[in-house]
């Protein structure tokens, strides 16, 4: 499968995620994490959310994924409420930490969502094999997570998120804990996977370079209250190659995002607790 769209072809892509007037308050309204967020994400888009710590970008991601509830506003995914989308398993989630299960092998970690979906053993094994090829970890199926490097663990986590072919991939600083070289390699790998699977990706990051390099659109957020202060379309050609990192247009866009961040107040120091760290409530 190859990618057709971006930057608005003749046919507007189908909307996958739509947020209307989404706000989130913590501590009985004493802290406003997000205020009045409107956004629409089209099919096949690669959207980055970038902003300073505490701007609520992880909170926004969790609201899209129905892991926390907004205080106000509406979240629609594929035309249905986020809650229904979660029950329909529309989301694949990747966190900054791989969150693999120590007691499961690589293969069994990847198969976890498939078990919950009730796939039989044979079908699971076939899919795990495919996924291992996709993230280039064939041969590691019987390793335990602690036997892998950080980058490899994160690839397992991506394979797990993609194993059940969710329409929407939510990634919360997935490469934030990795060294620069591993990060750039996984950036390329993620782009390839995105091309191959055609999924829609919402990607939270701290890195301006990463946001520009990967995305079709960068949403710049500002803090207190968290809101989307700028939206930049990234008109770099597809598919992206490593050479793009030296392209003048790439530098221009990086500068634009940086300026947008400064306009949003990202250069000021936020000493208060980050909303990203607040534990989500549990319960079905």
């Amino acid at each position, binding site marked *: 499968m190859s990618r057709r769209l971006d930057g608005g072809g003749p046919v507007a892509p189908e909307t996958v995620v739509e947020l209307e007037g989404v706000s989130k308050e913590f501590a009985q309204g004493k802290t406003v994490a997000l205020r009045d967020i409107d956004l629409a994400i089209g099919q096949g888009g690669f959207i980055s959310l970038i902003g300073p710590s505490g701007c609520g970008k992880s909170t926004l991601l969790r609201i899209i*994924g129905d892991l926390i509830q907004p205080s106000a506003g509406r979240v629609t995914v594929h035309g249905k409420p986020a809650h229904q989308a979660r029950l329909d398993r529309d989301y694949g989630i990747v966190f900054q930490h791989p969150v693999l299960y120590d007691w499961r092998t690589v293969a069994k970690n990847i198969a976890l969502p498939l078990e919950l979906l009730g796939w039989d053993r044979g079908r699971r094994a076939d899919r795990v094999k495919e996924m291992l090829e996709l993230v280039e970890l064939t041969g590691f199926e019987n390793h335990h997570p602690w036997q892998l490097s950080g980058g490899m663990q994160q690839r397992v986590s991506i394979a797990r998120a993609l194993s059940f072919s969710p329409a929407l991939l939510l990634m919360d600083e997935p490469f934030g804990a990795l060294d620069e070289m591993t990060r750039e390699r996984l950036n390329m790998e993620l782009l390839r996977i995105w091309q191959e699977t055609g999924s829609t990706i919402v990607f939270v990051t701290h890195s301006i370079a990463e946001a520009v390099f990967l995305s079709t659109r960068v949403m710049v957020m500002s803090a207190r209250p968290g809101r989307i202060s700028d939206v930049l379309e990234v008109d770099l050609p597809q598919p992206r190659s490593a050479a793009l990192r030296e392209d003048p247009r790439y530098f221009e866009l990086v500068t634009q995002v940086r300026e947008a961040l400064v306009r949003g107040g990202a250069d000021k120091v936020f000493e208060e607790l980050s909303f990203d760290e607040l534990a989500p409530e549990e319960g079905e």
Partner: protein
Amino acid sequence: MGQVLRRVGVFVLVMAALWGLWEGWRAIGTHFKLTWPFAVNDTTMPHLHRIVQSLFEPAQVNGPWLIDILWHASLFTAKECVVGFALGAVIGFAIAVALSQSRFLERGFIPYIVASQTIPLLAIAPMVVIGLGTKGVKDWVSVSVLAAYLTFFPVAVNALRGLQSADPQAVELMRSYAAGRWRILWKLRVPSSLPYLFSAFRIAAPLAVVGAIISEPAASIQGGLGGAIVNFSQYYTIEPQELWATNIITALLGILFFVAVVLAEKLIVRRAPEHYA
């Protein structure tokens, strides 16, 4: 192989050092006629070789060797311990699962669970033995129930902590797969709790032995180690080495249970090597 040899070497060295300390203190104590902290003589500190030797002598005239008596007593007590340990583990874990499902339950019940351990076993033994006896339950099963009364506590407390130890992001992931409460419990919380559960089992294993031994006299059971201890206590001034020998066998039984738990943990719990104790 070298590692096994080294371990055996350390074991032998430690044993030898303890032996030396015992006999050394004994020699000093008898030579200088120490009375502080206690008088040292053949009654308070029999020779260690006398203790070991007594195992291979008849406890009564023309009777079987002491070790033969203690072997059968150990088997009997071990049976009570295994059942008591299993019962305590199941009950403790069930309590932990129930409490992990609701803060309200947890807050409400934890004080009573803690309070249960402030009641001495001897105080509830008659109720259990007589109560269960009227239902036709064998006395040794009552002893198991009393041992379980001791062992359920560390299991319940640790398992609860273990069930609550699951990574919050792992819980979010499970929710993103539309997993409900029970599947999160089974696929995530229970496996996350296993290391906690096994540290509880390490505490509970020797506790089961202690519980069984204390409860045996209360249930008027004489065929176990508890019975043997009561019996040999009465002859302590004449034959102190027999009680000491019984104590050593009792300790061995506790250690055996502990080691069994550690081995089971190695087989069952899969986790990063740096987490191993």
